[in-house]
């Protein structure tokens, strides 16, 4: 077996799933894990027994990690909020995400540090989601004192926020209820990344029209807030909405641009990879470190490290490292739809696509363009097969048009993304050329929207499920 990490990840994920289904106290699973650890040490030299106990150990470790993440410390904000008391709460802390501003309302994740509960003040911890009515521009890391009502989110949104480690929402009704402490507490690298993102967004919106800029902003920087709802809806129907987020493809382009640039200035090969790794981390932070980007970044870093350490990289192992990396930080991500779609689509592509390719004998085709076309179809079909179940379950939609739509939309999206990156790059080196890239992207965006709308109107393009 060349992929030991794949098995470890599978056992770990199964442990997380089991712990979410079974009510079992943490001390009990913890003791069980310790027993498995001792047995693994005792059977160290007996390969089969060691493998069995190691599997059990990894399984129980997943369960322990999930249960521990569900345990809240005594200082957690959850312990200071009384549901029947509707008086406004006062909390102190700092902004822990890039604030999103829309219609004079800012929303952001707020990391709490202190709360006033009754007449007493306590040091506290935990994240809350804040909606603040304010025209002011806020930024990541800013320390604030807020006054507002705290409440629990409802139903499915509650589950989503819970998976992100957020238990409460705070509504701050006016600017007077938000005071700046003039202290910046954020992680300096993330602050730098978000500053860079604002600058790049400025460039995109300066040269392109609002719709094109919104689409490029989503594809290049992962910022979806300016995308009109009708574009989003149409792409949802054709199963191509995934192009509106930053994914592994974008990480690949960024790696390519960095490595190409370093190659042009004659940087040695190994140093190129050493420089590219922190640049990818900054890009990951710029795009909000969503699951697909973290996955792609970790996979790219594993590949580069494989080269640096002179080891042959394996796609399943690097996918497993990315999965473990995300789950160790937050095991509840396993239940997040973004995580499930991102990993199943990549897994489906790397496992189904090569089998289909060899089964159909694509390699023996002599016409190169036909081979490329069928290849594209098979990749799209594999991803569709892998994610179909999740999409039907979560979005209640079944889109047979997805395979055809992806075949037409993905190349266009690729060109738009490349145009977006080129626009940013050119505006820094040759600003005079930037408008040409902006015009090209306008044409491509118009084409993308027209084709998508045309496909969505096809008979039996999509079915809404009950």
């Amino acid at each position, binding site marked *: *077996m060349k992929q*030991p990490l794949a*098995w*470890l990840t599978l056992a770990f994920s199964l442990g997380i799933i089991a712990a979410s289904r079974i009510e079992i106290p*943490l001390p009990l699973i*913890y003791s069980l*894990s*310790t027993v498995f*650890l001792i047995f*693994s*040490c005792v059977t*160290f030299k007996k390969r089969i027994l*060691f*493998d*069995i106990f*190691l*599997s059990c*150990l*990894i399984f129980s*470790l997943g369960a*322990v*990690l999930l249960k*521990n993440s569900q*345990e*809240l*410390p*005594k*200082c957690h904000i959850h*312990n*200071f909020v009384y549901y029947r008391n509707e008086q406004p709460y*006062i909390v*102190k802390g700092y902004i822990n995400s890039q604030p999103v501003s829309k219609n004079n309302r800012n929303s952001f994740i707020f990391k709490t540090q*202190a709360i*006033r509960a009754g007449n*007493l*003040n*306590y*040091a*506290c911890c935990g994240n809350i989601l804040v909606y603040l009515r304010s*025209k*002011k521009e806020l930024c990541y890391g800013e320390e604030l*004192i*807020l*006054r507002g009502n705290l409440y629990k989110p409802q139903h499915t949104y509650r589950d989503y926020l819970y998976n992100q480690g957020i238990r409460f929402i705070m509504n701050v009704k*006016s*600017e*007077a*209820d938000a*005071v700046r402490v003039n202290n910046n507490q954020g992680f300096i690298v993330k602050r730098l990344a978000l500053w860079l993102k604002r600058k790049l967004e400025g460039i995109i919106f300066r040269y392109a029209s609002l719709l094109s800029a919104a689409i490029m902003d989503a594809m290049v920087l992962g910022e979806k807030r300016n995308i009109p709802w009708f574009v989003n809806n149409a792409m949802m129907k054709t199963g191509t909405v995934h192009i509106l987020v930053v994914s592994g493809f974008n990480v690949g382009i960024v790696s390519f641009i960095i490595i190409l640039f370093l190659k042009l200035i004659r940087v040695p090969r190994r140093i190129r990879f050493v420089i590219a790794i922190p640049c990818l981390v900054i890009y990951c932070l710029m795009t909000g470190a969503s699951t697909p980007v973290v996955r792609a970044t970790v996979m790219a870093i594993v590949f580069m490290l494989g080269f640096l350490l002179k080891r042959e990289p394996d796609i399943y192992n690097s996918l497993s490292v990315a999965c473990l990396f995300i789950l160790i930080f937050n095991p509840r991500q396993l239940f997040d739809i973004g995580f499930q779609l991102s990993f199943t689509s990549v897994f489906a592509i790397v496992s189904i696509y090569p089998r289909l390719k060899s089964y159909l004998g694509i390699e023996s085709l002599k016409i190169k363009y036909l081979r490329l076309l069928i290849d594209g179809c098979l990749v799209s079909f594999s991803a569709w097969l892998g994610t179909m179940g999740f999409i039907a379950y979560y979005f209640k939609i079944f889109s047979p048009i997805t395979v055809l739509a992806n075949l037409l939309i993905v190349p266009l999206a690729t060109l738009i993304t490349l145009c977006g990156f080129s626009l940013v790059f050119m505006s820094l080196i040759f600003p005079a050329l930037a408008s040409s890239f902006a015009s090209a992207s306008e044409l491509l965006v118009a084409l993308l929207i027209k084709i998508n709308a045309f496909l969505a109107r096809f008979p039996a393009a999509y079915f809404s499920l009950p």
Partner: protein
Amino acid sequence: MFTLTREERHVVLFLITIALLGIGIDFLAKKCLPAKSIAQFNQELGKIDLNSADKELLMSLPGIGEKLAGRIIEYRDEHAGFCKMEELKNIKGITESRYGKIKDYLIVE
């Protein structure tokens, strides 16, 4: 199943032992450390500083419009800031009742 080499098995067991130890300590800290009350988190919290607030922030106070906010800033600039909150009453348009409504939201630093 895993086909790990001897060294890899050592590394895996070492990492798992450290992870288990770390989780155990984290769990104990969550259960045993009490919530700390703090003193400096006091009445001044969530109030607007009259000496640094801009026009928009002052306009968010109840009963303060654009004109009145402008007059407050004018007064502040003329007198090199407020020494005490009662000075607000010297401004045209801030009556006793209006002052009563806004004083709880303000602070002079």
